[in-house]
């Protein structure tokens, strides 16, 4: 009887291992979802849930708080409010998370630019671009803000000499960032038009 029980346990363990391995293989094999792909309706985990709405509502509140601080001229407080959006917990794999965070980074970078913190603004944008899983209009917006940062740097470097080498490089970098933003926008618009 001991052997029989051992056989049953081994069989059950094999079944569990098999199911776990299959689900792990499936998770690892999922390709990143393209920006304009229609949502697969079969995956119930992608349904809009309360957790997503809660995260979006919190982001909305922080944006509103930042707006009030901005209207009050308190840019550091507004910056802190926007930073809190970056640490919000969204449902795993929710595409809205990337979009909301990238939009928050764009606003955060513009706030930092207005406070003269160009390096911090550039770092904020670079982190957003590095963490983005897909191209989107929000990523294109980040490139737009990146161009503005380069423009601001060019202006700071130029001073009275508009032809200073550093300023010229920054202007070129700004043009490249704007071009990248335009390319992404065009590609996504074309895809959206094809899907409609």
């Amino acid at each position, binding site marked *: 009887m001991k052997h*029989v*029980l051992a*056989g*049953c346990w081994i*069989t*059950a363990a*094999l*079944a569990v291992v*098999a*199911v776990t391995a*299959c689900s792990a*293989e*499936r998770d690892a094999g*999922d390709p990143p*979802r393209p*920006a*304009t792909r*229609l*949502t*697969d*309706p*079969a995956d119930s985990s*992608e*349904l*809009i*849930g*309360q957790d*997503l*709405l809660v995260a*979006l*509502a919190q*982001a*909305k509140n922080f*944006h*509103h708080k*930042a*707006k009030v601080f901005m209207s009050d001229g308190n840019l550091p407080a507004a910056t802190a409010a*926007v930073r809190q959006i970056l640490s919000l917990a969204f*449902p795993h794999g929710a*595409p*809205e998370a*990337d*979009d*909301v965070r990238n*939009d*928050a980074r*764009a*606003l955060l970078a*513009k*706030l930092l630019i207005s406070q003269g913190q160009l390096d911090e603004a550039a770092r904020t944008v670079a982190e957003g671009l590095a963490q983005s899983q897909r191209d*989107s*209009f*929000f990523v*294109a*917006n980040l490139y*737009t803000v990146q161009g*503005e940062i380069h423009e601001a740097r060019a202006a700071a470097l130029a001073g009275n000499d508009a032809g200073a080498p550093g300023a010229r490089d920054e202007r070129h970098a700004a043009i490249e960032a704007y071009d990248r933003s335009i390319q992404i926008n065009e590609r*996504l*618009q074309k895809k*959206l038009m094809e899907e409609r």
Partner: protein
Amino acid sequence: MATQDDDTLTGSVPEPDAEPTPAELAHARRFAELIDKTLTGRPPPAISADDRALLEVATVIRATHGQLALAPDRQHAVVEDALRQAIGARPAGGSAATPLARARAARRWAPWLVAGASTLVAAAALLVLWLRPPGSPAGAPIGRAAVPVEWMSRPADALIGPIARDHAGDAGARIDAIFADRLDGFRARRLARRGRP
């Protein structure tokens, strides 16, 4: 078929010292013959309900008096079968011990049959998952009803569209639009699910 003796059990009870009536004597003789036939393996094809009840009582009384001993050859066969099973041999066919041996064997093999069937099912599931054509997406909707896209978590590109440079910092307005759209989808899904099992 009703007879005049059908009220034997339900009729009036005679006095203990009363002389038996001819009808009672005839019934007693007929019942004695019925018991003899039943004990010798020749039961009548049909008997009345009262006779059947009396017959069962008579059988029980006879068994309690120890008059149901097996025939010597039958006793010998049962003992031989028990001894054979004790040393691991197969019992002789047709013996009373055969069902016990069969049940014991079934009890011995049943867990292995269950374990083997479970392993086969797990192996089949593995094969189906691993050998699935790459064209079919994981979790493809086979036979499932399509879910409206508005109910799903999805990129906000189609909702927001290209962001003009002048509005690069208007994230507050965009989050308002995203939240309102997803809230609509959530409510639509919740309302649509009502009334369903």
